[in-house]
């Protein structure tokens, strides 16, 4: 377990640029731009603060949820590149022979990459998302204090909103990672054999399957097939109608209700099958890696 944790840590060290340093720079730029906007009068603190009087806590909720959505989109994009690149990184870095000189099997080596994509790497982006939310709340609270629409006493409510939204983002993140696990596993497995070409091949494969289905079983056009419809459904992110109802009521955001409805509306059979597919793909890739020339 100690060795496996070290391998996951290795992934973090190798890819911290995309998962930690890059996001921190983004936060710093955003925060710096916000401060600058207030400083040079581009944003009127009194006017901004007054807006918060309309629905003060809802602004915090929506603002942080929006940030969370932005970070989840960022995470999806870097995870796609991680799977296509990280699984081939040992070979690209010319370090394959070094890692093969370690008492670690190829399966454990690749599994550590997949586990890193599910844990420490998204966890780091989540940490940065929390930081960005904290800074957002700080800016919002300061502007409200300037306009006199907030007091130190409202800090408790704001902290409550922060915890609720942070929990909601976490649940969304975990559900999303589990939902997209098979795509990460297959992309990683392809990258083990094809390197960066895994990215276009990952996109081509389902198209090829759909075309083959159309050729053999018929249909209106190559993408009017069962396999394509399944893929479209499977690629759609896990969702819940809770957020739709949230914005038409005055009820505060309830992260627990959101999480329960999201979890309830997930197709867990598909999650299980997807996890099985991801593991199978990684196993096959590890057998390829075991046999492929290391230098």
């Amino acid at each position, binding site marked *: 377990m100690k060795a496996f944790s*070290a391998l996951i840590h290795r992934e973090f060290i190798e890819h911290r640029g995309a998962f930690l340093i890059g996001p921190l720079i983004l936060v710093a730029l955003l925060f710096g731009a916000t401060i600058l906007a207030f400083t040079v009068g581009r944003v009127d603190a009194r006017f901004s603060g007054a807006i918060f009087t309309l629905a003060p806590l809802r602004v915090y909720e929506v603002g942080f949820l929006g940030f969370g959505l932005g970070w989840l989109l960022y995470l999806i994009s870097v995870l796609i590149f991680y799977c296509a690149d990280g699984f081939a990184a040992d070979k690209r870095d010319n370090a394959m*022979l070094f890692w093969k000189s370690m*008492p670690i099997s190829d399966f454990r080596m690749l599994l550590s990459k997949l586990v890193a994509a599910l844990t420490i790497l998204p966890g780091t982006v989540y940490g940065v998302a929390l930081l960005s939310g904290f800074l957002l709340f700080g800016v919002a609270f300061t502007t409200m204090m300037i306009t006199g629409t907030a007091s130190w006493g409202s800090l408790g409510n704001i902290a409550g909103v922060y915890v609720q939204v942070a929990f909601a983002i976490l649940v969304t993140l975990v559900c999303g990672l589990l939902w997209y696990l098979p795509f990460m596993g297959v992309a990683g497995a392809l990258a083990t054999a094809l390197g960066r070409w895994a990215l276009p091949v990952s996109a081509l494969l389902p198209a090829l399957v759909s075309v083959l289905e159309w050729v053999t079983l018929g249909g209106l056009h190559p993408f009017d097939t069962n396999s394509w419809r399944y893929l479209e459904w499977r690629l759609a992110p896990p969702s819940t109608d809770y957020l739709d109802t949230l914005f038409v009521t005055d009820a505060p955001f309830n992260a627990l209700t959101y999480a329960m409805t999201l979890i309830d509306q997930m197709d867990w059979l598909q999650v299980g099958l997807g996890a099985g597919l991801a593991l199978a793909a990684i196993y096959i890739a590890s057998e390829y890696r075991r046999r492929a020339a*290391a230098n």
Partner: protein
Amino acid sequence: MTDATLTSNPVVSARGLKKSFGGKQILHGLDFDIPAGRIYGLIGHNGAGKTTTLNAMLGLTSYEGTIRVLGEDPFAHRARLMENVAFISDVASLPRFLRVRELFALLTNIHPNFSPDKARSFLEGTDIRPEMKIRTLSKGMVAQLHLAVVMAIDAKLLVLDEPTLGLDISYRKRFYRRLLEDYMSEERTLIITTHQVDEIEFMLSDIMFIRDGDLILHMQMETVNEKFSQLVVNEPELQVEARALAPVYEETRFGQTVMIYDGVDRARLEPLGRVSTPTMSDLFVALMQRPTANPERGQ
């Protein structure tokens, strides 16, 4: 049978080891045993099959035949085997994105027999610092670091495949001296391949010459010294006599005729000219020209 195959518990044992790439056979059924506590030189031309043989020993490639390293099938159990085997390949293969201290910290958790204290002590006196990124190190420094890493692993078998490729002479000498002084012991076995055979000759206990996938010589160095002789002969009439003794190799160097003999009594050669033991590189050149130097191999 060669004299090095008589041990009861060899560290490496190969029988009928074959390997093909794309229909072309690279190894033609090698048979050999490597006993514990020896320093082996595996020597051959480019493409002779040295690296393929080492890769088979290290579980890095599949093969036909049987090979056992420390009693394990290396291809089936590479991960387990690597607890007791360390190797440096012929490319600078340390992960370049790590700092030196990060590398040591990772290895401490990954390798049960790695000692960071030993690794740090091996780096004393070098310019390598813990905060340095491996990608910023020179080629020689990477070689020093890699050697420090493998020497800090308490392994029973150390395999070095062209470990000093591209390094200057001072680094190479330091590298081998360090290896001998700080690492080798009676319990450890070292297998080394290099093209600079004369530089490692002094430390070898055994040699294996491999040519076109065949093992043409496998012998202890003492036996090599007894078995092979080099004769420098200048007089034309003596050269005729010398040729009658069937040298395995003959060449002219700076106007002198040099002949190398396999198994000819030195007493018979001495009246014909100056007799000496051939250097490893002379023997390499001589034996790589002829069909086989060990006709009884594999019996």
